[in-house]
């Protein structure tokens, strides 16, 4: 049996109790995300570097140099990362950096703070800087500044949205009310103490932006699942609901299986994205039941909710959100009965199977079709096939990802929106097509003629229509 990890968060949940903001909260977070709460600064730094090393966009060599502490060369390789994110307080104190160590970038943060306030002094706001392939984007969300430095080709709007996600992640740990109050009391406050341990989620969010289209599409990715199986899962989790429950959901590898919600409250995609990021961002949840306070910014940015998270199979997790901090044991019990029923009715196997074997474009059978993204505007959900053909290769996958981002951005440009965007390069052809009910981004082999593209795209639309009830969650259970 798994040993439940209980995170003692009783103090910080009481919003009126301000003394809790310092010690208790940070130490308890640490205990949940690392095995050793008394680890030294050095060890923590090392762990962070290891964490960053695994998804570093510059050579591993560079990372090694940094550990050895060679400032000069270390700094220059640090600069070469493709996308930096910085969070700093309006006093110029570093809060978080995607790469490297916050304490070593304080002079850079000082410069950023000075530039931002120069514009503020003249009643203006700096938004972005373009320098060659680099783009610098600034977002000010009192009392914090968020800055992206990127050479990924992403647009101002996309980087700004990503910075807002980072902001929401901070809110989800602290709530906006706490955040404001802390800096009202002490402008010079070092927020790192309070975030203690939750930086992993900022780190993983930063990585996820370039792996998961949910953020860009502001829609939920749904696991393709036989309609009857999904209905079964829905009815299982609708049974025996615990008191004070807000939401309950089953998630398979970042794809939603089903969601139980109150009739009057739907869940904002952005809140769900933060939740999904928590699931994938830390391995803690894989090994034990967890009970953690959490703020869903779009639901209510001022208060905490409580999340019960548990993996019931490899990559399949159950998430329950309650308004009461004392519901852990009830939820844990409920989870056990749900899991049992799901196993008995064999639906859990179906889910794992569907999650392991994503559908491919071959299933559609449209000639020349390589990949696609389809967003149903009505359901705020999207679907896409697994990668096949050229996109099994990592390099091609990354190019495709960027291409999708580019097309999306061009078509959603607020000043000049487009209905159709056709782009041909030597590698592939992409067609973006937006109507009142759907958005389709479809990729074809280079050399496919325009009439063939149009007919294949139509064939794809017919296939999606036919398979709508397995590709999307058309009606989720409510109470």
């Amino acid at each position, binding site marked *: 049996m798994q040993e439940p990890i209980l995170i003692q968060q009783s103090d910080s949940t009481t919003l009126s109790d301000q003394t809790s903001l310092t010690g208790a909260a940070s130490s308890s977070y640490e205990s949940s995300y690392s095995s050793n709460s008394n680890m030294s600064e050095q060890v923590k730094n090392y762990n962070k570097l290891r964490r960053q090393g695994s998804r570093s966009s510059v050579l591993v060599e560079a990372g090694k140099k940094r550990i050895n502490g060679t400032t000069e060369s270390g700094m220059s390789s640090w600069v070469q990362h493709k996308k930096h994110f910085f969070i700093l307080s309006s006093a110029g104190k570093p809060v978080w950096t995607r790469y490297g160590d916050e304490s070593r970038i304080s002079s850079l943060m000082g410069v950023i703070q000075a530039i931002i306030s120069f514009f503020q002094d003249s009643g203006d706001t700096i938004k972005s800087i373009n320098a060659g392939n680099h783009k610098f984007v600034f977002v000010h969300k009192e009392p914090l500044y968020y800055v992206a430095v990127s050479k990924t080709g992403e647009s101002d709007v996309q980087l700004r949205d990503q910075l807002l996600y980072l902001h929401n992640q901070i809110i989800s740990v602290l709530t906006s009310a706490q955040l404001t109050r802390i800096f009202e009391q002490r402008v010079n406050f070092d927020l790192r103490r309070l975030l203690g341990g939750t930086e992993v989620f900022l780190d993983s969010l930063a990585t996820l932006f370039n792996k998961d289209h949910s953020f860009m599409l502001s829609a939920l990715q749904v696991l393709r699942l036989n309609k009857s199986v999904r209905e079964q899962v829905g009815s299982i989790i609708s049974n025996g609901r615990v008191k004070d429950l807000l939401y309950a959901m089953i998630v398979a590898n970042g794809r939603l299986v089903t969601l139980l919600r109150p009739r009057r409250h739907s869940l904002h995609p952005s809140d769900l994205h933060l939740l999904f990021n928590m699931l994938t961002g830390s391995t803690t949840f894989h090994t034990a039941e967890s009970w953690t306070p959490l703020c869903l910014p779009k639901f209510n940015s001022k208060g905490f909710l409580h999340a019960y998270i548990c993996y019931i199979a490899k990559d399949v997790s159950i998430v329950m959100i309650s308004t009461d901090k004392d519901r852990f044991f009830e939820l844990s019990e409920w989870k056990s009965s749900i899991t049992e029923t799901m196993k008995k009715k064999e639906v859990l196997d179906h889910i794992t199977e569907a999650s392991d074997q994503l559908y491919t474009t071959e299933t559609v059978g449209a000639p020349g079709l390589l990949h696609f993204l389809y967003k149903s505007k009505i359901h705020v959900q999207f679907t896409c096939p697994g990668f096949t053909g050229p996109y099994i290769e990592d390099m091609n996958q990354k190019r495709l990802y960027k291409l999708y981002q580019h097309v999306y951005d061009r078509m959603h440009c607020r*000043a000049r929106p487009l209905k159709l*965007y056709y782009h041909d390069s030597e590698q592939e052809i992409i067609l973006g097509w937006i109507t009142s009910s759907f958005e389709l981004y479809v990729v074809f082999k280079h050399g496919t003629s*325009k009439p063939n593209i149009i007919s294949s795209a139509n064939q794809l639309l017919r296939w999606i229509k036919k398979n709508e009830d397995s590709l999307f969650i058309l009606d989720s259970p409510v109470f």
Partner: protein
Amino acid sequence: MSSSSSTVASTTITMPQLGRTPPTLSYFCVYNPSLAQSEENTKDQILYYTAKKVVPADVKMKQVGLAQALVNFSSAFSPSHPAQNVHSQKNRLVFYQPEPGFWLHMCIELGVLRKQVKDNKGKEKLVTEYLDSQLNDRAIESVLKLGYEQFKLLNGMMTSILDILDRRVLMHRIEEFFSEWIWQWDFDRLDQMIFSGVFNGVPTIRYKDDTKRLKILDQSLQEEYGVAHVMILDEKRDLVYRSNTLSMVDVRALRRYVCQMQENHQGATEQDKPTSSSSASSVKKDKFSGFKSFTRTLSNTHILDYFSSSSNTKDKKTDDSSGTEEEGIDEEQQQEQEQNQQSDASSSEEQLAESVHGEFHEIVRLYLSSRSELAMEEQELLEEYLLVLYKHKSNLIWSFLIPSFADGADEFISSPTALTELENHLTNHNLDTIATSLKEDKDTKQDKGLSLGKHFRCFYYDNATLNMRSTLLEQRKDSFTISNDMFLQLLDLKNDFETLPNTTEVYTRSTGNYWIAGQRVYNKHGRKQERRRSQTNGDATSDHQEPPTEDEEDEIVTERKRSPDDYTEMYLVAAKKDTSLADVEETIRKMSVSLVDLCM
């Protein structure tokens, strides 16, 4: 591109005027941080500063200081390409470093839209929208590049002026050039910025036999008068001929300058004409400082002497030039004005009537990167030339470039008969015949045209030869006008080609249902194939064209080596509602066929 404008509550607004205010230049400056030796004389780094409002010295320093801070900050991450532009809620800052250490920097106040909106309680409130997305970065950067291009043409490199002369001279020259130049730009006029800045090309007509004859004439001028390079433009300012020794980059700068001179010349006799013009090649009227620098060395009276004598020069061949001939000139003159959208047709008629062959302009000192035979290996980057500008009665505009250090250069300037002799030389070499033949050839080409019907407009740009053709700005009653949004969308396409590797085709359809499509073709294998096609077409339609000889063909192929900069771009705008993707594709195909006829 950047996100669209933001909305702000009315509290900050001091002028509650409803409607749209265009973007305006807030300030422009030229600075070089290395000129300030110590903390005390930081203001020494500012070589020139001009602003919409009078600004105290400390504010200027603050602005320049911020500019440097932004450049330094961005170069920490992007050392090779520091800040090019900064978007803020209300302004756009633009940076351009044409020579190491020298910065042209300007700040543009964004256009503003003020409107009355009802909030969710039904209460009226004033909303101010800053129109960030209306100001295209590529377009405004091109303004600074263009300014520097013309400054360099007239003054040489900033570094050289600073080294050879001194800071005060440099400051003076910068002020002389930029004080009027920078204020003439209307940042709302995308058409001007696109066709003179973003696509800084040279419309070129390719002639065959005529070019051969001109080459012989060019050769003889070089031998007898020490003319290093020749450039010839026709009445529409299309390039007719250039010496092989004159680089296209120089042709581009020179052509713009010559156009400007021509316009000023006409403007001098047409008072109070509207200054704005939508012609592709023309920028608003301005005065160039080059005149002044020249008159310092050359007596004005002498030049006037020449012009009066020129009108008295007799030549038997053109003595019989009757009234009809002159009418012809006037017609052309009018056409030209129509093209430039200058309604007043009563132009320099009188002056033209006086001169029999043509007229010379004042001689100007210029700096080009093209080398003359006199140039030495380790010489400066630019060579100094004297520009002799001659407008023939056929409206061909000749630019003769004489190296200013040539032995005969000073004599040429001071000789009262030199220009007459030059003109006689041209006449003796059958200039009139060549001119007539050129005109006929051009008319044949023009007949074929680039018109694709009233629903389509197009634009063609060749990045290797700098050739360009456009029907985007044509004013036609039966057709649509290109809106600013269309231009912006076209620039978005240009950006796709520049930023996404290997992009060959982009088709877009806006929510307003117009199409803008673009195609970029990399010339990987020279132009042999296309020339073959034009050859067959040419034979079928025109008697004047002869198939190119083997030599010519080879020359062209070797001239155009495979390179990432060797590409052509075609853009098509379609404003018809029911146009399909296939229609657009078909029209682009037609367009490329007629371009082969026109430009090859």
